[in-house]
Structure formats: C-alpha cells, structure tokens
C-alpha cells in the first residue's frame, strides 16, 4: 500500500492527522488510528505499546494508549471521541511494526466514532506535512 523509501515515508493522502502526530483512516464509522512516520522516527525503536481495553470510551485529544521506547514513554491521543472497537494484538509480539509499517501493520486501535464532525478539526496530509517539517 505504501512504498517505503530509503529515509522518508509519504504521509498517505487518504488519512487525517493530528498535531500530536497521530493519523486516522475512516471507513464508515470506524476510524483506524496509528502514529506517523515522523513520530516513530523520533521515538526510535518501539519496545512496548500499552493498548486500551475494548469498549473503553475515549475523548478527543485525550490519552488513549501509551507507547514506549527504551528511553521514553509517550501518550497516544485519540483524534476523535468514541469507543475502542478493536486493538492491534500483533503489537504485543511485534512492537517493531510501529517503526517499520506505521501506516499499515503498525496501526494501534480502532475507534467507533460518535461524532463524525470532529474529523473536520483534523489536518490533511499537506497541512500535517507542514507541521512535521517545521519541527
């Protein structure tokens, strides 16, 4: 789905982005969430992802999960409000998917979205690119 270049990955255009470096891909009322290539690069090797429980209610821009590298812990914020519908269990054995395939097998959780209007507050891939380049 994404062609991995030597150093950079393109931010997929069919996704929306947050300023905290999460992406969300929406199909009907389910949004799949992960972190961007920029974020995984800054984190360096991911060693553990603390996944939320299925059914947990999440609020927009509040912590839904945490992700750990050897030397740091980062919060992953829910891009929109809703309920956790599914989590990526593969990450228990393969946390490195977040680094290697951040937009593909490195997805983290799926939200059943309560208010699709909240998506309008998120960034397009072009807008996100500007932010990522700026940092």
């Amino acid at each position: 789905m994404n062609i991995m270049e030597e150093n950079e990955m393109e931010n997929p255009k069919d996704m929306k982005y947050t300023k905290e470096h999460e992406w969300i891909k929406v199909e009907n009322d389910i949004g799949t969430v992960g972190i961007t290539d920029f974020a995984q690069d800054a984190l360096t090797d991911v060693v553990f992802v603390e996944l939320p429980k299925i059914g947990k209610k999440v609020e927009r821009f509040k912590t839904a999960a945490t992700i750990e590298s050897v030397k740091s812990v980062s919060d992953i914020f829910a891009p929109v409000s809703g309920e956790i519908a599914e989590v990526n269990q593969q990450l228990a054995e393969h946390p490195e998917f977040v680094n290697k395939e951040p937009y593909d097998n490195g997805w983290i959780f799926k939200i059943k979205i309560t208010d699709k209007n909240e998506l309008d507050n998120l960034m397009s891939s072009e807008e996100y690119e500007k932010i990522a380049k700026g940092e």
Partner: protein
Amino acid sequence: MDYIPNTEAEKKEMLQEVGVNDTLDLFKDIDEKLILKEPLKISNRLSEIDVRKKIEAIAQKNKLMKNFLGAGCYNHFIPSVVNHIISRSEFYTAYTPYQPEISQGALQSIFEFQTYICKLTGMDVANASMYDGSTALAEAAFMAHSITGKNKIIIPKTIHPEYRKVVETYCSMHNIDCVEINYNNGTVDIENLKNEIDDNTAAVLVQNPNFFGCIEDIDEIEKFAREKKALLVACVVEAVSLGVLEPGNADIVVGDIQSFGIPLSFGGPASGFMAVKKEHMRKMPGRLVGQTADTDGKKGFILTLQTREQHIRREKATSNICTNSALMALAATVYLSMLGKQLKNLANLNLQKSHYAYEKIKHLDGFEPAFSSLFFNEFVIKCNDSEKSISKMQENNIVPGLDLGKYYPELKNHLLICVTEMHSKGDIDTLVELMKE
C-alpha cells in the same frame, strides 16, 4: 583525616588555571551573609587511631546477650564467604550499573538474585530489591491499587506491627483505605476476613509465617480474595521459612531477605524483595536486570524496562525508588549459593529447635502457650510477669523474647520467643532452667 590528596602547591596551580586567587572566590555567587564565618560546633578532626578509640568505646556500650528475639530481625548463621565477597571494593564502591559494559559483575549477580527469588517464591519476575520488607509491602499495596483501580486494602493484625504502620503511612498519603482484621488462635480470623472483604478490595495482605510465628492457611485466604477479584499479596519476613514453606498462589510476593546473610545490625540495612506474576511485570517498581546480547552477539546483562521508573516516567511513575539495597541482595545471592539445597535442612533445624523449646516451656508453671496453631521458629508464651522475666534473665545475659505488650495491649505479659540454628540445646535448656526459677 579528610582524604583530600591535593597539596597547597597543587591547589595554587589549579586556582591559577581557574583564574581566581582563593577558593572562597568560587563561592561569590552565594550571598555573602550565608557564608559561615565561624567553624561548625562539632568535634575536632581526629586521627584514625583516635576515631577508632572513640567509636569503639561507643560500641562497647551495647551489651551483647544470648537473645531469643525474632520479630522481623533474625539471628542466623552467616557463612564467612558472604562478607568476603561484599567487601570486594569492585562491588561495594561501585554505583548502580548504568554503564553496563563495565558493570557485568553487578548486573549478573542481580540477575542471579532475581532468579533465586523467583525459584523460592514460584513467581515469574522479581526485581533487584527494595529498601526492606516493610516498604516492599507498602509498594505492593500501591501496585494492587494501581492494577485493580480499587481503594481498599485488607491488612490482618497478624502482619508485623511495624510493617503495618508503614503500609498505613504510605496508604494515608494516597487515599487508600487500610482495614485491619483480627486474629484468632494466632492466625487470620477467617470470619472477620469474610465480613470485611468486598468488591472494593484491591488486595488482601498476609504474612506467612506471621508475626506470631504461626503458619497461615494461605489457600483458604486465597479463596476469599479470588471471589471478590482482589489480589493476594503474600509477605515473607522470616526468609529461612522458604526452605520448607511456599508462599501459596499469590499475585505479588514481598518480604525481607535479612535472614539470608545479613547481620542484625540494629534493624538495618536489610533488603526487601518483590516478585510478581508475569502479567503484573510492567507495574512493578524497582530496577530490573535483563539478559541481552552485545554487538558481537555475546551474552550480557543490562538494566531494562526502565520506562517504569521515575527517571523516565517522573510524575507518572508508580514509585520513586532509585537506590535500593543491592549490596545486601548480593549478600543474599552469595548466601543462597552457599546453602543451596541445604536451606531445607537449615529450616528444619529451626523448626525442630523451636518446637523442642516450646515443649519444654509449656510444661513450666506460670507459662502457657498463647496459641495452638502450627508455627515455624517463633511462638508466643503467656507468662505471669514478662517484665520481671526479662529483667531477671538479663542478669544472666539472656533476652528471653519480646514482650508483645509493646505492640498489642491485649497481649501484655506474652513473650514472642524465637529459636534458630544459632541456639544449641544447651542454650535452650538454660533458658528453660531460668524460667523455672
């Protein structure tokens, strides 16, 4: 003696490099009125000869007796090897192994300690040590609260009173409710437990053998904990008991390994331990040593899962512990390597001797057992006047036990007597003779 190598001439050269005339010029960034103008009102500098004389005189004021005291601090045999190893300055003058390439000795030894604790407790993961058993128990209470999200801890009065005070102090700072339950015939009152445990209980704490030396029915207690989805935290204060007893099917096992190669030392330092089931690993406080490989593929050890700890998680950490009791954990590791399977025989010596003492004492006039429960190497004897007994024995250089009135008003004139492998039959017979009088 101040251990400062530089001579006045060298200091002058250094001051020149820095560009000031006097060392005190380097303190000019501190408000002048804060700089002390008078010497401190403490004693004068002393030579090594005089320091030794002075402090040896203080040590002499401590009277060494034959004592039958346990109560959380046990007099056990320490193989000579232990002190030789922990006196090696490559170990004791080293810091926490943050540069693992030059600290493989410390890291491997701690890995061995973690392994020993898992073997003895039946748990999946053990950490590199805690300050002592009491703080390990308090941290276990915090962990249970964090894991279950519940606010109540059940803490029987059969747990060491000082351990209970510590758990209560810690919990009072964190809005966790400690509910004490009573004892019956020296062990946890099951009826009381049944009445107090509810859906808001995060954990049931139980010490085994308990403070009275009695052996608890852990499986029975576990049933009630499981019913209410509370965690079971087992606490082992007399580590030698692990030679014959297992902590049961607990979720968290904590305790103290002072009995494994650490002298009494007036109660400290000791060394706490904590071991947990695999699923609780990431919520465990303290340092963890893990196995890994270096760039050549060679096996090595390193501090790992540090994202649990305060230097990374900061205010989100579940504990603030850094320095623990690693050198004492090394002592325990050496001790266990020396005892090996003979720990079982050692435990048996304790068991046999304490029961011999018990049998002899219970037939004396004016003395009777307080409880009929099974016990390990400590037991409680009711007497007419324990204060009198204690002071009489002192004249014969013996301390017969601990008067429980100190901790339990209802147990005044009850003595907690501990017998270990360090007491010969002769010692016990002498104690009994003196009690007869």
